[in-house]
């Protein structure tokens, strides 16, 4: 029986940025990440990025409990998983070693 190839884990620059912010702030809403990124993450695409990261297993999310009296949909709160933290650490240390000028 042929061996199945292990899945290659990839991470884009936007995903790295989102991971970095989530590791720093522990938990965030999508809009908070946009604000914290100072415009590097865009409001229209951050949710697509976060959804993709959740599919890869780098982050997890849950619906936040709404404050009393609030209406509308419950907000989704994101946080980094252990895999996501290891991925960020691997990229950071690898970048520092290979290209010190571009290290996070």
């Amino acid at each position, binding site marked *: 029986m042929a061996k199945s190839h292990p899945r290659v884990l990839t991470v884009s620059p936007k995903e790295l940025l989102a991971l970095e912010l989530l590791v720093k702030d522990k938990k965030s809403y999508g809009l908070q990440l946009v604000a914290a990124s100072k415009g590097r993450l865009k*409001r229209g695409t951050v949710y697509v990025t976060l959804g993709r990261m959740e599919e890869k297993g780098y982050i997890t999310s849950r619906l936040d409990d709404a404050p009393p009296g609030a209406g509308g949909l419950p907000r989704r709160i994101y946080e980094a998983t252990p895999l996501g933290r290891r991925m960020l650490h691997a990229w950071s240390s690898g970048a520092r070693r290979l290209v010190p000028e571009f290290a996070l």
Partner: protein
Amino acid sequence: MTHPGTRLRAIAARLFDAQTLERYVDPAVADLQAEYEHAATRGQRRESARIWVVGLLAVVQVMSIQGGLKAINTVRELGDDDRRALLRMVLASMTVFSIAALTLIVPFMREWWSHPRVADLAVYLIPQALPLAIPVGLMSGILWSLGRVPASRTVSVLVLVLALGSSLVSFVTLAWVMPNSNQAFRTAVAGGPVHRGANELTLGELRQRIRTATPLSPASLSRNSLALNYHGRWALAAAPFGLAVFGVIFTRGRTHGRIMRFALGPIVIFGYYFIMYAARDLGLDRTISPFAAAWAPNTALLTVSILSYLALRFTTPQTATGR
């Protein structure tokens, strides 16, 4: 309190599956609603209005990205028959589009074959031809290809998505690209700066010019023609989608004979442009308003589409007409 994004979310719920809605659309809507509520409860009316607009645009962007990904996946998962029908439609559309565009460009170029910048001049004429050639190509492709075998619901929806994209391309061309390429053509031919006419103004500049022209001044005639030009560009941009809707209604779930498939396209297109130019004359001499004149062909097309839908719905399916 009205929660912004509720209607958009309802549309998204019809278009996407539960996972897409939960993972991509709902977080965007929820953040918008929370941010808006925060500003509104503090009485920050201008800020809350800004949040409403910016937030809704973000939700639309999320839906567009997911819609595009869904369309790509849908094409990948198409059956062989559907894929062949779609490919035939695209190839037929592109062939007719190319012929139509060349037919519109070449007569203009005959006068300038010996011009030192003949290649540039030909390029400058392309945007002018696009808004007329795109609907012709699309309509012909739909009728010739999708009328051969009954078009499935998936293929019909994909064709309409393609038509919507074509309308957007037409709109961008008519609003910004064509005016600047027209001006570039005129400048190249004149060998120096040339004053911009109505066709060389972008949509925004045209709107501004209409506002500043006073209704009872001697320039009121030109205000009418400016308004006609303005509304006409919007209406022409909608033509690819309108014609595609007609074509899809006609081919959905039924076949048609060769004569019908090849004759109907030119008849509809000729009728569309005939009404467009006739209504334009009525608008210029103020028999009807510029808005009514500009949208007359699309209104006629919508009426014919609705009547076709009703007529075809109440006849037996796969009615063979002609040969």
